């Protein structure tokens, strides 16, 4: 019987299977951060339970850590407390923590792969919806809430209904690999399938334009699977995957043996059936800019802000949503995307804060200055990314252009730390959600690639980055 990659990973992790019922799934790696874990640890204490596999559990602080000078104390006392509570919990329960001063601190979805905690074929969970990122390595990875976090800490298992399978093929080659990025691929996919088009499924991304991507680019694609409503996104591992992970700190000691197994087992069989399938063509994808208040409200940089009735295609609810989104975003239909001017630029988040993202963005700004109307910041995804970028001199390029160069964390992606938009401010952001108030109450978010964000910082408005010399 032929099987998809998802089915192979699922089947090899089922502890208990009930006919037509939910399955108990074994969890290979559990990533923990300060925001969704405190109540879970409290629950363990209350019920006198231990963490079943502290050796498979890894923690860091990312959501609310300030991205300013780390030698200074944290001003926000509530944040400081939450960070300290995680430190205490990790100490009490014997969990490895990469604390605020660790050279391995960073956004949980950046450091997992970076440290080799993420490996192909594994099941990975984290109390964070963007856990789907790790699917780039052929791992089955999904976000869970705090009760499930407690359940996994206590049992290393999770009850789940078996998801359906969804094949998304992106065929052919991108026309300009620097201007049309992984972010543009995933935004155009979500734009077409909608915010719940992937509901109940695990997506496997396939096709030449996907295998052409580097590991960091694949992470960008899988990261936003949740914005399409999917439980997880997967890409079959290949030589790039094995090379990327080789020699990283936490990969299994018998790495070469593992690679043999992964090569043989971790791909969808020829002719395997998916519950649904759609195909995109990479050569038709343009640089994308979101104009509304969910990630599906996105268009080509060369287009105009849509008229609600044109966007809604006859669906009155969609039309209403678009009218409301345009009000919130303070945009008029028919405005050229390239005429939208910006107040802020944010390069960072678990979607786009890795070394390659920063390299690509730096090419746009080298020798130029940020528009005087714009405040721009770069928040590297991890301390390691920051260090590697500084070794390449990227910090200097960004700072010379008047970008702020900051410490690693989630930062302005979700507005939990002091990095937020003021009401009415408009931001080109490399993050993943343009929801109302996400980056600060009343803030207006446009989701874009790092290259687009960098170009917007310099020009003060969006530009067709295909016209820039990015080689």
């Amino acid at each position: 019987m032929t099987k998809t990659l998802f089915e192979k990973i699922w089947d090899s992790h089922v502890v208990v299977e009930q006919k037509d019922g939910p399955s108990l799934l074994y969890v290979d790696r559990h990533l923990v951060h300060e925001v969704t874990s405190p109540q879970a640890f409290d629950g363990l204490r209350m019920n006198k339970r231990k963490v079943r596999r502290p050796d498979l559990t890894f923690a860091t602080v990312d959501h609310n850590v300030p991205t300013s000078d780390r030698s200074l104390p944290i001003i926000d006392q509530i944040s400081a407390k939450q960070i300290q509570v995680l430190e205490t919990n990790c100490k009490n329960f014997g969990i490895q923590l990469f604390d605020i001063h660790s050279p391995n601190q960073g956004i949980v979805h950046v450091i997992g792969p970076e440290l080799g905690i993420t490996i192909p074929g594994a099941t990975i969970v984290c109390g964070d919806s963007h856990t789907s990122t790790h699917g780039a390595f052929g791992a089955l990875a999904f976000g869970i809430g705090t009760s499930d976090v407690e359940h996994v800490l206590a049992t290393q298992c999770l009850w789940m209904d078996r998801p359906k399978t969804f094949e998304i093929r992106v065929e052919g080659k991108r026309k300009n690999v620097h201007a049309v990025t992984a972010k543009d691929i995933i935004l155009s996919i979500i734009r077409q399938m909608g915010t719940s088009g992937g509901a109940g499924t695990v997506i496997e991304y396939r096709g030449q334009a996907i295998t052409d991507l580097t590991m960091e680019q694949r992470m960008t694609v899988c990261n936003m699977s949740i914005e399409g409503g999917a439980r997880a996104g997967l890409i079959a591992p290949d030589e790039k995957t094995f090379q990327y992970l080789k020699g990283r700190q936490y990969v299994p000691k018998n790495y070469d043996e593992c690679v043999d197994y992964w090569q043989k087992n971790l791909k969808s069989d020829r002719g395997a059936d998916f519950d649904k399938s759609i195909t995109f063509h990479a050569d038709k994808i343009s640089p994308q800019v979101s104009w509304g208040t969910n990630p599906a409200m996105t268009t080509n940089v060369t287009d105009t802000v849509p008229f609600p009735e044109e966007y809604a295609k006859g669906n009155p609810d969609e039309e209403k949503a678009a009218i409301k989104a345009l009000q919130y975003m303070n945009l008029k239909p028919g405005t050229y995307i390239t005429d939208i001017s910006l107040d802020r630029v944010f390069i960072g988040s678990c979607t786009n804060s890795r070394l390659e993202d920063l390299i690509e963005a730096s090419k746009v700004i080298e020798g130029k200055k940020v528009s005087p109307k714009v405040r721009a910041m770069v928040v590297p995804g991890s301390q390691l990314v920051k260090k590697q970028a500084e070794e390449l001199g990227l910090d200097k390029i960004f700072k010379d252009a008047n970008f702020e160069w900051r410490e690693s964390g989630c930062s302005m992606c979700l507005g939990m730390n002091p990095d937020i938009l003021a009401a009415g401010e408009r931001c080109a952001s490399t993050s993943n959600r343009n929801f109302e108030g996400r980056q600060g109450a009343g803030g207006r978010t446009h989701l874009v690639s790092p290259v687009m964000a960098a170009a917007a910082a310099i020009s003060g408005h969006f530009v067709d980055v295909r016209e820039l010399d990015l080689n």
Partner: protein
Amino acid sequence: MKGSVIKYEKDNIDTDVILPGPYLKIHDYNELAKHAMEGLDKDFHSKVKNGDFIVAGRNFGCGSSREHAPIALAYSGIKAVLALSFARIFYRNAVDGAFLLPIEIDEKSYKSISDKDILEIVTEKNEIKNLTKNQIYSMKPFPELIGKIIAAGGLFNYKP
């Protein structure tokens, strides 16, 4: 279970508006409740009563995995959210911690229910009575696992 409706005729009500990011640092559930729905409806806290239901459109609770979202609603007094569909993590969070019931309803029921209607939800019969309008709607039965977790009173009480 009887209560009054607070209706939002809107799809994709995300967890960032249900409980905005800055409040994720708060551990006290009653304190969280003061900020429920703050990103969408500034008056929510003053108008919500214990036992109320929220009625909303598609993909309710999309976005972040924050369990703070159903917690903030539950500690505001919301006993159930009736929506055309739910995002998965919100759905699981709502039942795992036994915070509130996520109930899927069909388009016709959604359109029929108005703000401030009094509903009676009878989950054993998968039935929703609109006492204000004297109508009866059917709710989508809970999937097997979810039904068992709800019956057990949350994930940790559930024994297969």
